[in-house]
């Protein structure tokens, strides 16, 4: 039973990481706390659900969700955020407005019912690990989480784009002064981060569920992960996700009704000692 719960915690952490890594990447580089991230997650899930129903393909559903949400990120950045560039608080509050609009839009399009994205045939059922039967799909989510971590790590540490992003996190003005079009790097990062929210939405929509307040719930977890891990840190996001994922799972077993309170604990402790998070740097 314990091993089962640990696995549940790890898979939830993997989902959280997929969503929160996009969030922290955007926050770290663009200094934008994209509060519409939860709504983008929800849209990713819904679009994935619809595409999956239309085509019957889980892969297409995933691609559809990621592309759609990345485009939504493009529209958000180019269509709205450009008007408030340089004003941090106004940017954040604008994305909050967008979150409300998107949430209500989803309610208009898909209604208030709870949906679950159909698990594809090849991921149905369980596998035996040791003495434990564990659902294949959840293991798949865990694998996706690990894959995203490795892919982002390679992207950030081994490619030119990654070097630009990291340089941008440290000092965007200096990068621009070196003759690099930092706006393009920003836009790519924003779309990449959004696409990760979309992917998260599809995964979450399959092994959790999609319903109108799911966006606020995933947003709390993403905020907690970033508050714990620190702005823009990939490793911080991974550690934060593990901590929150495991705590939330065990919290739900031990105090089903106060599970939310359990994530409050580590956040409070951390804030008392490191207000900017484990790996956060002052802006």
């Amino acid at each position, binding site marked *: 039973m314990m091993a089962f719960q640990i696995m549940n915690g790890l898979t939830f952490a993997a989902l959280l990481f997929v969503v929160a890594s996009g969030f922290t990447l955007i926050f770290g580089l663009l200094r934008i706390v994209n509060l519409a991230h939860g709504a983008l997650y929800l849209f990713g899930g819904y679009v994935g659900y619809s595409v999956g129903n239309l085509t019957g393909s889980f892969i297409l559903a995933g691609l559809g969700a990621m592309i759609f949400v990345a485009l939504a990120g493009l529209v958000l950045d180019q269509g709205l955020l450009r008007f408030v560039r340089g004003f941090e608080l106004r940017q954040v509050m*604008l994305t*909050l407005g967008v979150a409300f609009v998107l949430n209500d839009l989803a309610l208009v399009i898909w209604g208030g019912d709870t949906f679950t994205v159909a698990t594809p045939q090849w991921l149905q059922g369980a596998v035996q690990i040791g003495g434990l039967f564990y659902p294949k799909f959840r293991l798949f989510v865990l694998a996706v989480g690990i894959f995203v971590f490795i892919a982002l790590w390679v992207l950030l540490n081994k490619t030119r784009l990654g070097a630009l992003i990291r340089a941008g996190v440290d000092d965007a003005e200096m990068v621009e002064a070196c003759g690099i079009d930092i706006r393009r790097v920003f836009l790519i990062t924003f779309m990449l981060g959004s696409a990760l929210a979309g992917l998260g939405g599809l995964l979450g929509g399959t092994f959790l569920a999609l319903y109108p307040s799911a966006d606020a719930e995933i947003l709390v977890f993403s905020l907690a992960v970033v*508050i714990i891990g620190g702005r823009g840190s990939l490793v911080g996001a991974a550690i934060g996700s593990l901590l929150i994922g495991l705590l939330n799972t065990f919290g739900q077993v031990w105090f089903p*009704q106060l599970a939310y309170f359990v994530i409050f604990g580590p956040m409070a402790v951390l*804030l008392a000692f490191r207000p900017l998070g484990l790996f956060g740097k002052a802006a």
Partner: protein
Amino acid sequence: MTSKTSTTLRILAGLAALVLVAAPLAMPTYYVSVATQILIFAVLAMSVDVLAGFTGRTPLCHGAIFGTSTYVVLYTATVMHMPLPLAMLLGVLAATVLALVFGLLAVRTSGVYFLLLTLALGLIVWGICLRWTEVTGGENGLRGQLRAGLMLSTRELYVAVAVVVALVTFAMWRFVHSPFGLTLRGIRDGESRMASLGYNVPLHLTIAFTASGFFAGIAGALYAVFNDFVSPSTVQLSQSVAGLLMAIVGGVGTLFGAFVGSFIIIALEQAVSSVTERWLMVLGLTFIVIMIFAPEGVIGKARLLMAGRGQSKTKP
């Protein structure tokens, strides 16, 4: 401006405010009810403004603090059968203690981080209200008979709320114009300077946060009596956002602007809700539009536009 004309102006403004407050009494009960709501939310917006306008820290958790008070009042009065004054006292106390805890955690941060953190803290309260069904009733919420118990008509309740709101407004006005409030403004404008002058910045901010939560708690307790019902939607993010939006629309740092903001947003909500169910979308769109075009608030924007026109006239 001589002091004489300024006194006359003040008396006139006071009279105008009195007429405005008395006006709903001559209207149908529906409008009286809306006016009561406007006054209650103006207190919430002012409590947000105490932080946003006078310490420079924009909070997104005041809906949760406000709603906590509403929950506690309804729970203690309806489920535990406590007398209403005691229930309201406990509600305000709960909100104040919650604000103290939030304040202790949040005051070391500022700017976006402060916003983010208070948002997360507020959402945690929402999550607890939603899940802790034994106490909060979950999605069904708590329903009371506080108004019936008071045996007040809609008009009498309005007058009672107006009196309380007037007292609380005066208290807040005194608070932000006290030497303490001046220190807060000093912190807003130059935190490190105030710290090097020997002021204990975190302590000041914690007290400001707690006081702001106390005022939000009063608004929440009034709302419990007014609405007789509380559900997770009272503590949800849109409530905090509405409170902040009212403060922004009225003009951050003006305190009394909150009444204008509360009037505009609630009038808009009533108007929109009578035609469509898409209030949240309109709220979001309003937020986006205000952020892009008039972050200094409607009054501030109007003032700027007039100043702009005046300038262009004087220029050749």
